[in-house]
């Protein structure tokens, strides 16, 4: 396995990151701004700052085909940044929420996006041509608490959402004249706006940090604060699910997860490293870390001369420098995203976290 590509951008938490489709531009949510980094050789250099929010930017997403960037913030606003020859032009989106916006993602169709919020609602936003602006429709029921995360089904109609009320839900965000009527599937046949196709919680019911549909869209995985991941296999509309598989791990909770094909999930979080899960409807298991342990070049390689040893003892009162974690990330990982895919499987994925690093890994 090739070594991961580490980009230490700055010493600040990264709330979210997103690569453009050509992977030459990297959008980073840093404090109140979105920063755009461009690839220069092997490194990423700051190109542009998108300033319009006046509170912490919580999430950012680049639409792969149109190149539009959407960002949302604790100031309760979202902006769509349109690429123009003069640079990115912001357009304010009317979210109509009165709490922080927590999470935003483009639908695969790229003509709408969903914003989770502390207002116990998801704002599904689409562009209205007559008025020439972005408007939103709210998915309010049945959320009882902050929506922490959303994830789109490949058909761009179904939306999965995780909330601090410990439920992962699948809802319809069908908007007339914007979406094509979806094919009937395992989640339901008729899907008018705000149809609740499923509500799931696991036994210990920790609040949900991350949700994701499998590549086919026929299974849903979510990670919760009880250090578990749960995978739901639905069994058609109005039927109890075929299987709900929950894996309680010995680790700290996961903040983010992605599918790699239908039989593998990659999750990362408070343990500062990514883990692989393998399984199917019969059961899931933790299959180990993606970190290659005992990598050379992390302090171990430094020559241990007697002089160095006594200097360390004099300066720090100890010989070994144990202030560094043995993982590549030195703090919690917030976001895991697919970086390079072939078909349904992910060949490379990227992670970002509180330590200000963006790391690109081979699966």
């Amino acid at each position: 396995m090739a070594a991961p590509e580490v980009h230490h951008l700055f010493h600040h938490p990264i709330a979210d990151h997103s690569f453009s489709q050509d992977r030459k531009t990297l959008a980073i949510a840093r404090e109140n701004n979105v920063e755009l980094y461009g690839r220069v050789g092997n490194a990423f250099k700051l190109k542009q700052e998108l300033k319009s929010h006046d509170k912490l930017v919580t999430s950012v997403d680049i639409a792969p085909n149109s190149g539009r960037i959407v960002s949302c913030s604790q100031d309760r606003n979202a902006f769509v940044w349109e690429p123009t020859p003069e640079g990115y032009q912001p357009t304010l989106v009317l979210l109509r929420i009165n709490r922080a916006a927590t999470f935003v993602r483009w639908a695969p169709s790229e003509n709408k996006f969903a914003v989770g919020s502390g207002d116990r609602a998801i704002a599904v936003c689409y562009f209205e041509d007559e008025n020439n602006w972005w408007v939103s429709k709210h998915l309010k029921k049945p959320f009882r608490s902050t929506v922490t995360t959303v994830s789109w089904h490949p058909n761009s109609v179904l939306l999965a959402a995780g909330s601090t009320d410990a439920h992962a839900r699948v809802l319809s965000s069908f908007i007339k004249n914007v979406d094509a009527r979806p094919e009937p599937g395992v989640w339901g046949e008729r899907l008018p706006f705000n149809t609740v196709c499923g509500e799931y919680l696991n036994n210990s019911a920790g609040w949900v940090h991350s949700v994701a549909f499998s590549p086919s869209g026929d299974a849903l995985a979510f990670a919760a604060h009880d250090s578990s991941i749960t995978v739901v296999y639905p069994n058609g509309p109005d039927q109890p699910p075929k299987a709900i598989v929950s894996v309680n791990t010995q680790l700290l909770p996961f903040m983010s997860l992605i599918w790699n094909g239908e039989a593998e999930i990659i999750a990362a979080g408070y343990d500062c490293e990514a883990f692989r899960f393998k399984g199917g409807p019969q059961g899931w298991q933790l299959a180990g870390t993606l970190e290659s342990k005992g990598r050379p070049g992390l302090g171990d390689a430094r020559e241990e001369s007697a002089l160095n040893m006594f200097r360390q003892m004099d300066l720090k009162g100890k010989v070994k420098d144990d202030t560094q974690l043995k993982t590549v990330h030195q703090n919690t990982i917030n976001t895991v995203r697919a970086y390079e895919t072939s078909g349904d499987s992910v060949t490379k994925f990227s992670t970002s976290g509180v330590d200000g690093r963006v790391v690109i890994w081979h699966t």
Partner: protein
Amino acid sequence: MSIIQQHTSASLSDAWRTINIDALLEDSTQNFDVSTLHPPLPETSESEVRQLAGQVRQLLRGGDAEGALRGCLEFPVYNGEHLAKEAHLQTVIEVLQSIKASEMTPMLQRIYGTQGGSECLDVLMKYLYKGMASASGGSGSAPRTPSRMTPQQTGFSQMGGRAHTATESAGAAMSVLLSWHEKVVEVAGQGCIVRTMTDWRKV
């Protein structure tokens, strides 16, 4: 021109920040019974707990400590009277105290390896924290009431308390709980502690 037309002392001070707006919103979590979010749990009565305690003691007398431990961890009292919960805590602590230190880790590993074992250790962790919270520990058979946990006013009163045998036995019980805690974390990991904190099913 400023949007704010009038400055009053009320708008200039930040007293409005302390208004609990959640109380004013109709569908906020404050005006909503959060317990309805979860499926209801079966209620356990005190007599059932006593019955289970009897069975567990029988297993202990028969030398099957592992069976006794499993027995009381598989039926946690999540929904029940205060007395029932306290009585079950006493049963768990009794079992824990009767197991030798050298047997702890192998026993936990065996339990963890079986079906539903991870859940059992999560329950054990909940009882360990509950035992530590009630501080008085479990050498006595009488159920403890919260009134016994009166906070000590100064650090010095601890010194005075040392003379009491009750405190000493509580200390012994605490050391049992602490060594179990260490062993459970070794086997079930930190995830076990996180689940104890997040789980809505309280023992």
